[in-house]
């Protein structure tokens, strides 16, 4: 439990990212309503809230289920590493399944739901619970006919929960006009969270939004969330605050010829580098050099490949005398390949986040970032890139992105280029130009913030020994002459 000055106490949700959006968690001692359509993760959110509460904050919890039996629940979340049976045996968790069988119930005369109150009270007191989940209480409306009475009783129940001082989650099925079918949001008014599961262009994305949070500031955006083998994690879209600590440490790009163009050393640690070029201009090769140089410094590299599988990448680079395999084996290099269309943009970003958290790389390569454009609209891509860059810079990770442009230098500015070039610290452009009977490969350092760099168009060739800069020496001399004029920032 955390309490900020002048703000009422909040209870940590145990869900990655959600505490950040809610400014500390759910309101302590009050009910929170979680609504959403079927299959959007309400039950899981409830379970995770309880399990994490037990594991991390030592707060016992009661799960009152109106839908699934204790056995089903425990089986369903086993794959997420939640061992409910063990927690029940330790008297930290209690699951009470309230089964309402319409066929075996007859109603005659007046009644109330005191039985439910007694059950809940007993369950709470028996383990000293601090957290309660009611999932999905609206099932009562399916089992009983007197809706007027049910409403009155639910209102009483929520007040009772407050009196009891437990932090509660009440889940509700999404209604057509209201947030929940029975308009529970009227009664639970402290904190309302909406979960959504949307399919756009055949790609599904889960989203979470805080509809209201009385007495507290909260993020008002829709936040994507992910359900995977670790449960739910929400991705907070942090604003680009631009207050990262910066490093004056320079790391090599892995290609001596290119380093020479960049003050003779390379790029700043923790900066972002963009490599653009049309198809077949050796973007991936440059990226591989960058990965290799990081590996040689014994710094971990995470390589996201959206076009080639790890084996393919390793094979192709081997033919250029770039040996990545040994570093994959020594676990310095992790190549993660996936199809861009496998999931939505947000999911890609979440996955990047998670892998970065787990693997803790010093260098991240995304090859190519333009592939992601195919799965998102332009504003989405831009927002995602900003967030990704922000996250990488915040962690002091050197990043390299490659981006495929259409090669024509006309008025149509490429989408990713447009979005990312202003964020990138170093921008290297690769070109192929036809000359006589062959093509001439060239490289231009468009910009490199904070350091002098060459203004030359540098030609290079690719052989089975890798990339060779042709006029690197000549350029080197010129760099020294010109460098002062080209220092940016």
């Amino acid at each position, binding site marked *: 439990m955390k309490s900020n000055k002048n703000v009422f106490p909040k209870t940590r949700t145990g869900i990655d990212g959600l505490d950040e959006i809610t400014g500390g968690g759910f309101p302590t001692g009050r009910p929170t309503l979680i609504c959403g359509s079927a299959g959007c993760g309400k039950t899981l959110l409830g379970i995770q809230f309880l399990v994490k509460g037990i594991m991390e904050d030592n707060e016992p919890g009661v799960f009152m289920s109106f839908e699934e039996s204790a056995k089903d629940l425990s089986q369903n979340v086993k794959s997420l590493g939640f061992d409910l049976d063990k927690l029940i045996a330790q008297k930290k968790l209690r699951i*009470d399944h*309230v*089964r*309402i*069988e319409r066929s*075996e*119930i*007859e*109603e*005659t*005369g*007046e*009644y*109330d*739901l*005191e*039985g*439910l109150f*007694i*059950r809940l*009270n*007993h369950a709470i007191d028996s383990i000293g619970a601090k957290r309660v989940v009611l999932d999905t209480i609206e099932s*009562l409306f399916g089992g*009983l006919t007197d809706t007027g009475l049910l409403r009155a009783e639910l209102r009483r129940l929520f007040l009772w929960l407050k009196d009891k001082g437990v932090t509660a989650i009440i889940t509700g099925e999404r209604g057509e006009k209201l947030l929940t079918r029975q308009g529970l949001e009227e009664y639970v008014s402290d904190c309302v969270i909406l979960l959504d599961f949307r399919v756009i262009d055949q790609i599904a994305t889960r989203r979470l939004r805080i509809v209201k949070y009385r007495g507290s500031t909260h993020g008002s955006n829709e936040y994507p969330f992910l359900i995977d083998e670790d449960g739910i994690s929400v991705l907070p879209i942090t604003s680009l605050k631009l207050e990262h600590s910066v490093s004056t440490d320079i790391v090599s790009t892995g290609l001596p010829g290119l380093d020479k163009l960049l003050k003779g050393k390379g790029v700043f640690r923790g900066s972002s580098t963009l490599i653009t070029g049309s198809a077949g201009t050796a973007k991936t090769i440059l990226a591989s050099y960058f990965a290799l140089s990081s590996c040689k410094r014994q710094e971990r590299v995470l390589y996201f490949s959206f076009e080639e599988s790890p084996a393919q990448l390793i094979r192709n680079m081997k033919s250029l005398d770039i040996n990545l395999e040994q570093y994959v084996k020594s676990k310095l290099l992790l190549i993660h390949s996936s199809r861009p269309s496998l999931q939505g943009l947000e999911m890609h970003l979440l996955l990047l986040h998670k892998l970065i958290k787990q693997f803790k790389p010093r260098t991240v390569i995304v090859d190519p970032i333009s592939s992601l454009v195919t799965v998102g609209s332009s504003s989405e891509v831009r927002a995602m890139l900003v967030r990704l860059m922000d996250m990488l810079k915040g962690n002091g990770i050197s990043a390299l992105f490659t981006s495929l442009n259409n090669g024509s230098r006309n008025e149509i500015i490429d989408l990713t280029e447009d979005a990312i070039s202003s964020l990138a610290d170093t921008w290297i452009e690769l070109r192929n130009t036809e000359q006589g009977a062959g093509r001439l490969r060239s490289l231009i350092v468009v910009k490199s913030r904070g350091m002098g760099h060459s203004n030359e168009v540098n030609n290079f060739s690719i052989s089975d020994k890798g990339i060779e800069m042709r006029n690197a020496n000549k350029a080197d001399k010129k760099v020294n002459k010109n460098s002062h004029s080209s220092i940016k920032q």
Partner: protein
Amino acid sequence: MEKEQKFELRLYVAGQTPKSIIALENITKYCKQYLDEQYSLEVIDLLENPQLAEGDQIFAIPTLVRKVPEPIRKIIGDLSNEERVLVGLDIRTLPIKK
């Protein structure tokens, strides 16, 4: 229904509330009238034994549970509608057969 079966009934209440008292009066009356001695009626006060609520899936008060004969039937409310209670417990037919 060849053999006469004994009825096992349980009435769940929570303290001496007016609804519970009416329910108990009603069921006692019906039992005497229609079931002769062929029944047992147990009153469970959940305020004293809250742990018993889970076993019979009680959420409303008062609730009358017919444990025997199977299947289990539940009637919630103060049992003021005689007709519905008898239908619910399925005991209408018995006195006629007799």
